[in-house]
């Protein structure tokens, strides 16, 4: 709490005091890239304009692996922030169970959130013993195959319209010295099996593996196709061709150095900042052009329980922010900048680009639970290790991969 007051006091000193009753609310998040920072600034703007309170911005570097531990240890250590962003899913599960997060049920009671949330499954991780402990504010999906128009112009072929056509084009790409698949080193590999699972394996497989945690489903014929697709990917990816980050992989697509990449929709932010136009410089295929549903997660806002003796104005500011985050106005402004899908579709989304429009169409079929969404961070970490090892080491057979994937899923809780 001490730190919070210090930060708050410093912010006041810097910004000059606003009205006498205005409160400072510290908000932590890990949106540090250019597009992301612009998006969170939209929230801050609406919040400050509508309430007269001050938004104290605490951006933390390192996203899920760097910022998440800081946020969690601040809350556990009794130095909570006013509000924080985290991924929608199970990362904050134990904090909610330990009673460290505020129950928002009464605060949003009159908004009838059940009626406008585009998919009720988004709210599931927020609910615990009848209470509501977080508010999802956007939907992100991994399920995108990004293709380079320039690369396919070079080899004189039309841009593929689904995964199978894409795989069939690899030999021609390799002959022309174009990298078939661009990949950033480290965590970007982690989302790929899930995308293949939704696209190639289908809805049932995703539900059986991610929701029911069935090892038998992993050992079944449908998942085998997924593992074989991973094996195919492995044949065209090598440590020498990997680039440092997913943004670099995006650049390879724009220049035509590489032909394709599977990555989440946030890649589009980078593509657009680099001057790419959907449909002209790059194509996007949601659900690999095969499936009809997207797996989804996203970001949520949590409001930690503040210690006793906190200025009531700050507690009220928490409530005001909670309501603003899901209001139509803030939702629209935020998501158009962020490139994610809004959690409510009762707003005017004519500003959305071609890729986002495709995604909104698929959203109507309902969301599938992604790995991020339904597996604990421990299980996700184990799968990440397995995927990293599999991609880099050709000695691990498809059978080994399936078996190890199955045993991790079986042990998942």
């Amino acid at each position, binding site marked *: 709490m001490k730190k919070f007051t210090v930060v708050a006091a410093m912010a006041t000193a810097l910004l000059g005091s606003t009205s006498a009753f205005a409160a400072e609310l510290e908000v932590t998040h890990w949106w540090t890239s250019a597009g992301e920072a612009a998006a969170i600034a939209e929230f801050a703007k609406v919040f400050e304009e509508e309430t007269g309170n001050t938004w104290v911005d605490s951006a933390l570097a390192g996203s899920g692996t760097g910022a998440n531990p800081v946020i969690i240890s601040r809350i556990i250590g009794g130095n909570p922030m006013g509000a924080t962003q985290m991924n929608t899913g199970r990362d904050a599960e134990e904090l909610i169970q330990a009673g460290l997060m505020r129950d928002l049920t009464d605060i949003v009671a009159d908004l009838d959130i059940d009626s406008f949330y585009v998919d009720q499954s988004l709210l599931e991780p927020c609910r615990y013993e009848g209470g509501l402990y977080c508010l999802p504010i956007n939907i992100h999906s991994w399920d995108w195959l990004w293709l380079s128009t320039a690369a396919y112009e070079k080899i004189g072929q039309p841009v593929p319209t689904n995964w199978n056509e894409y795989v069939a084009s690899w030999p021609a790409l390799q002959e022309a010295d174009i990298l078939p698949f661009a990949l950033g080193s*480290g965590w970007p590999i982690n989302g790929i099996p899930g995308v293949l699972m939704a696209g190639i394996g289908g809805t049932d497989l995703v539900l059986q593996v991610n929701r029911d945690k069935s090892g038998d489903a992993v050992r079944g014929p449908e998942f085998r196709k997924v593992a074989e697709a991973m094996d195919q990917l492995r044949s065209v990816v090598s440590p020498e061709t990997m680039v440092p980050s997913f943004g670099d992989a995006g650049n390879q697509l724009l220049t035509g150095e590489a032909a394709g990449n599977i990555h989440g929709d946030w890649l589009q932010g980078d593509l657009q900042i680099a001057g790419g136009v959907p449909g002209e410089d790059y194509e996007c295929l949601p659900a690999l052009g095969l499936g009809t549903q997207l797996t989804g997660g996203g970001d949520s806002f949590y409001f930690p329980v503040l210690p006793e003796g906190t200025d009531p104005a700050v507690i009220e500011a928490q409530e005001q922010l909670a309501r603003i985050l899901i209001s139509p106005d803030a939702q629209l402004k935020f998501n158009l900048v962020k490139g994610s899908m809004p959690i409510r579709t009762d707003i005017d989304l004519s500003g959305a680009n071609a890729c986002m429009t495709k995604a909104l169409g698929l959203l109507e079929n309902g969301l599938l639970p992604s790995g991020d969404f339904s597996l604990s961070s*421990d299980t996700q970490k184990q799968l990440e290790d397995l995927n990293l090892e599999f991609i880099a080491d050709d000695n691990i057979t498809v059978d080994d991969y399936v078996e190890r994937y199955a045993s991790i899923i079986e042990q998942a809780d």
Partner: protein
Amino acid sequence: MADVATQPGQGAETSTRPGFVQRLFLHNITAKVAALPMIATVLVIFVGCTAWTIYYSFTNSRLLPRNDFVGFDQYVRLFGTNRWNISITNLLMYGSMSLVLTLTLGFLLAVLMDQKIRFESAFRTIMLYPFALSFIVTGLVWQWIMNPTLGLQGTMRNLGWTGFTFDWISNPRMVLFALLIAGLWQGVGFCMVLMLAGLRGVDEEIWKAARVDGIPTWRTYISVVLPMMRGVLVTSVVIIGSGIVRLYDLVVALTNGGPGISSEVPAKYVYDYMFGGGNIGQGLAASTMMLVTVMIIMVPWAYLEFGGKGRR
């Protein structure tokens, strides 16, 4: 302690006599009071935290510590995990090579420095300079140098030597040597300075005596000077050894465990599962195993070094 050492052999008798307790607490009381903060620190921070670590490694604690015991489950999972086993092998390989090479190169450089060369202090500064950089900086610098497309390999190829290959950092079989190069670059200078101090501590008379006996210089170094530097050698081994066991930041900056998981180390496993995976139980089980590894090395050594008081 002082009172025990000055009256050897009396402990057993005094313990039965009345007044032992008073003597235990009141004898030389100022020294005991002065040592209290240190004793408290050792008990709470070292012993206490170690006990806490071991205790919770037997629970299934996730994000928050929980008293839900699961026996050896965390350890079973740990040793069933490929990544952990690779980490251990990597540490053993890197550790043995790093220890031997740092000591050898450090000693050789110190001997060269010891030849009363000109500009010695300038050379010493140059050699010691890498040690002033953190492992993170060291790792990043070497990452750029060894990057196949941007670094040495790319430069050589651009200069026209198209067959030049130096891709250790992206080659799973060679990546440990890439780590070793960076580790040695950082650590050898410090070892050299320690050794040089040891060499300078050797009495000039010994050298004169050796020369009179007609012993070649290299032989004097190996058979006479080196054994006399035992204290410095032990210090160097302990410092290098502790650096090896906690190897973490160099790996994070240089390879981040890649390619794949071929350059993972135990300390990184602990961090990743404790904070990235939110699994305290698993992280603590791994750190307990690290402690056990250190104990296996340290206990016999400490026994030889400090045990058997009669020898002294």
